[in-house]
C-alpha cells in the first residue's frame, strides 16, 4: 500500500461523507462534491470518447486513408468516408451557435433515421413475434400438466394485461370489464415485484459504500495508526 493509495482512499472517504451530509440538510460541502461530480464525469466521458472512439475510429481511419492516398497512390474511399462522418459530427456541434444551428438537423436526421430503421424489423422480430410465440405456442402440454397450468396462467395474464391497456373501448361488462380487472391484478403483482427489486437495488448501493469503509478505508486507518505508533 503506497502513499498514493492511502491518500486516494482518504479522498474517496471524504467525498463519500461529503455526499452523505445531504441527508441532514443541503450544505456547501455537499454542493462542492455535487459540482465536482458533474464536472469530473463530463471530463471523464469526453476523455474516454477521445481515446476510445475519435482516436482509433476517426483519426485512425483518416490517417490510413491519407497514407494510402499519398504514399501508395491508392484512393481508399471507405477510409476517407470517415472524414464525412467527422464533418457530420462537427455539424451536430454547431447546434450551440444559433445562426447555423439548422445544420445540426442533418446528422440528427441521420441518427434518428438509422435508429427508426433498425427498430422496425428488430422490434417486430425479436420482441413482438418472439414474445407472442412464447406466450401462445406452449399452452397445450397434456403430458406436463404443471407446466400447462403455468403457461395458461401466463397466457391469461398477458391477455388481460393487454386488455387493460386497450383504451379504445370502455372497460365495462363481464368480459372486457372482468378481464380488465384481472389485468390490473396481474399488473399490480408485477409492479409490487418491481418495487421489491427496486428496494433491493437501492439498498445494495448503500451496502457498497459501507463495504468501502470496512474493506478499504479501515485498513488504511490501521496502517496510519501503526505508523504513528498507536496500535
Amino acid at each position: 500500500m503506497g502513499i498514493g493509495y492511502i491518500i486516494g482512499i482518504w479522498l474517496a472517504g471524504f467525498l463519500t461523507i461529503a455526499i452523505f451530509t445531504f441527508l441532514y440538510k443541503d450544505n456547501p460541502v455537499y454542493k462542492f462534491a455535487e459540482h465536482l461530480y458533474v464536472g469530473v464525469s463530463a471530463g471523464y466521458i469526453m476523455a474516454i470518447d477521445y481515446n476510445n472512439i475519435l482516436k482509433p475510429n476517426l483519426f485512425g481511419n483518416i490517417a490510413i486513408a491519407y497514407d494510402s492516398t499519398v504514399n501508395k497512390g491508392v484512393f481508399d474511399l471507405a477510409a476517407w468516408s470517415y472524414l464525412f462522418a467527422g464533418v457530420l459530427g462537427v455539424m451536430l456541434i454547431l447546434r450551440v451557435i444559433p445562426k447555423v444551428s439548422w445544420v445540426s438537423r442533418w446528422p440528427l436526421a441521420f441518427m434518428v433515421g438509422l435508429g427508426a430503421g433498425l427498430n422496425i424489423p428488430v422490434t417486430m422480430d425479436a420482441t413482438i413475434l418472439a414474445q407472442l410465440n412464447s406466450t401462445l405456442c406452449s399452452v397445450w402440454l397434456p403430458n406436463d400438466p404443471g407446466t400447462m397450468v403455468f403457461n395458461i396462467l401466463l397466457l391469461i395474464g398477458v391477455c388481460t394485461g393487454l386488455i387493460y391497456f386497450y383504451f379504445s373501448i370502455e372497460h365495462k361488462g363481464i368480459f372486457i370489464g372482468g378481464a380488465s380487472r384481472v389485468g390490473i391484478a396481474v399488473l399490480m403483482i408485477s409492479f409490487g415485484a418491481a418495487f421489491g427489486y427496486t428496494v433491493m437495488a437501492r439498498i445494495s448501493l448503500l451496502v457498497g459504500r459501507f463495504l468501502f469503509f470496512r474493506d478499504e478505508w479501515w485498513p488504511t486507518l490501521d496502517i496510519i495508526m501503526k505508523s504513528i505508533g498507536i496500535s
Partner: protein
Amino acid sequence: MLEKLANLDRRIIFLFVGLAVLIPIIFPLGLPNAVSQPVQNIYDFVETIPEGSLVFISFDYGPSTKIECEPMALAVTKQLFRRNIKVVGWALWPEGASMARNVFDVTGKEYNKKYGVDYINLGYKAGGSITIKEIGEDIRSTFPQDVDNISIDKYSVMDGVKNYKNFKLGVSVSAGVPGLREYIVVANSIFGVPIAGGCTAVSAPEMYPYLNSKQMVGLMGGLKGAAEYETLMNYVGDASKGMDAQSIAHLLIVLFVIMSNIIFFMQKKK
C-alpha cells in the same frame, strides 16, 4: 401521538436505514444463499463451453452500480478463466472501459492469464444497438484498437475473430440502456449468439419475459444474483458479504410499511 408517528422526521428513518445496513456489515450473520434457476443456467451453460473457445463480456455499467454489477462480472470471468476460455471484453458505457480493467486485473492475476493471449479489453464504443449490430458484421472495424490504442492485430486472442460467429456466448453485465436487452434483441435475434446476462435489480423484472421466451441463457438479478453466482463459484465476494445487510434493511423497510399502515388505519378509525 399518531400524528407525530405519521409525520416522523425523515432523518430518523434515514438513521434507522443507515444502522440496518451498517450493523450487519460490522457483525456479519453469514446466512446462506439459495441458488435460483436462472443463475444456475448461466453457470451450467459456461460449463459446457469447450476449452479455448471465445466468450465476450460487455461491461455496460459504471461506478454508480459497481456494487451490483462488478461481483457478477468477476464471478463469470473467474469461471471462464478457470475453464481456460478466452474472454474479449468491451463496453457500451463510457465508464465500462475502466470497470473492465478492474475485473480483468483481479481475475487475470488470480488465474495467471496473459493480456492479449487469454483476454483483451477493447474499450468503449458509443452507439448502443447500432454498434451491437455493427460488431456482428465487422468487429475489427468497430474495434480497430484495444482500450490503450494498440492495434488488435498484435494480440493472438483476436486472431481470426470477425464477428459474433466466433463467440460461444455473450455476457452483458448491464445497469440500463444500452445493455442486456439490446444484446438480446440485436445480437441474439439477428446473429444468433447465445446471450447470458447480469443486470441491476431495478431492471431485473423487465428481463423475465426474455428469460421465459428463452431468448437468453440465464439471468443474474442484482446483488442477490451476484451472491448466488459467488456461491456457485465457492467463494465469498462483495455480493455475498452484502447480503446480510440487504436482509436486515429489507426487513426494516417491511416493518416501516406495516407500521405506517397501522397508523393509517388507526387514524382512519378515529
